[in-house]
């Protein structure tokens, strides 16, 4: 009996040590493995979305090289879709660039939120990190930063793994897209499905549910009354502000929630 007891104790010690090692481990391979493992679900989502984008871009008259260049330099799914539909509609460059700017302005809020977890990182790494800030990498990295040993190196590997998946799937879509019929396999729903799960991962208590509901309803109301894409940033900023006041009024109730 005693031996077994001692054995059990030793085991728990080992696992605690393992966790500490993991937190400290900056070795190349563990960092790569953790980052890529966390990125693969994003890649599964990007593959059909990227193929769908490649198909549309090719039909709008972009060559696979131009599709790849756009995925490399812009790396923002929804903005790329909108730009391509504007190109096929014959829009000029300036309106397309302005639309891209407003659609992607939400990253301003995401990068601000990420900055809390990237303290003391030098400008070079921050500049590389900024390149990979997307809805998906942002949501996954924020969850990881909060819930487990996670650092900027792993987050950076995740960003660039997702980037590669996006780059290749869009180029493949540009080459072979004509063989995939429009709307096949529910391809159009890959992005909403991914966003739904990313939203679920961000909910950490009733206050977050309240902010999500307020943001969603405000966004729908603004989207119905105003053209364009400003509703995303407007509804997000307003709902987060309401959330701060709700937390203030809730006081202790929300504090006990935070520890959950």
């Amino acid at each position, binding site marked *: 009996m005693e031996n077994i007891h001692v054995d059990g104790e030793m085991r728990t010690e080992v696992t605690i040590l393992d966790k500490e090692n993991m937190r400290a481990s900056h070795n190349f391979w563990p960092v790569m493995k953790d980052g890529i493992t966390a990125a693969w679900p994003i890649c599964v989502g990007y593959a059909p979305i990227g193929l769908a984008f490649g198909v549309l871009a090719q039909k709008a008259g972009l060559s696979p090289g131009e599709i790849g260049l756009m995925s490399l*330099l812009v790396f923002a799914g929804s903005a790329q879709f909108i730009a391509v539909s504007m190109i096929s509609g014959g829009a000029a460059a300036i309106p397309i660039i302005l639309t891209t700017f407003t659609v992607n302005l939400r990253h301003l809020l995401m*990068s601000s939120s990420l*900055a809390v977890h990237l303290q003391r990182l030098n400008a070079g790494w*921050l500049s590389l990190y900024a390149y990979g800030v997307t809805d998906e990498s942002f*949501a996954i990295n924020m969850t990881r930063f909060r819930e487990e040993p996670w650092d900027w190196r792993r987050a950076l590997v995740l960003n660039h793994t997702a980037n590669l998946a996006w780059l290749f799937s869009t180029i493949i879509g540009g080459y072979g897209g004509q063989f995939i019929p429009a709307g096949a*396999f529910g391809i159009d729903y890959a992005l*909403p499905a991914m*966003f739904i799960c990313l939203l679920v991962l961000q909910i950490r208590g009733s206050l977050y549910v309240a902010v999500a509901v307020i943001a969603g309803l405000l966004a729908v109301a603004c989207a119905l009354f105003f053209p364009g894409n400003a509703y995303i940033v407007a509804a*997000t900023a307003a709902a987060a502000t309401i959330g701060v006041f709700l937390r203030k009024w809730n006081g202790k109730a929300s504090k006990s929630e935070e520890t959950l």
Partner: protein
Amino acid sequence: MKVDYVLLILGMGIVTYLPRWIPLILLSRRQLPEWLRQWLDFIPVAVLSALILPAVVTTGEPRHLDVFQPAFLVSIPVFIFAWKTRSLAGSVIIGMALFWIAGKFFH
């Protein structure tokens, strides 16, 4: 590659990169006030919700409300699946399959 397209893509890249870059450079080296930290803490949940809900309950140009569209109806089981499993890849696969099936009934 056409020069016009390269310039367009370059412009799109710059206006996308700057909002990603400026807050990281400005905010990562200073102590943020508590209210701002709390505000930023709500950004993920708020921005994802503001992206999804209009996308699945509105259609057309100009946009109008349409709750009985496959995108919204499929969102309900996908939400429940995501809530139970927390699986990103699973949610994407289930969502695509359901949307594909729903499309056959709606057309």
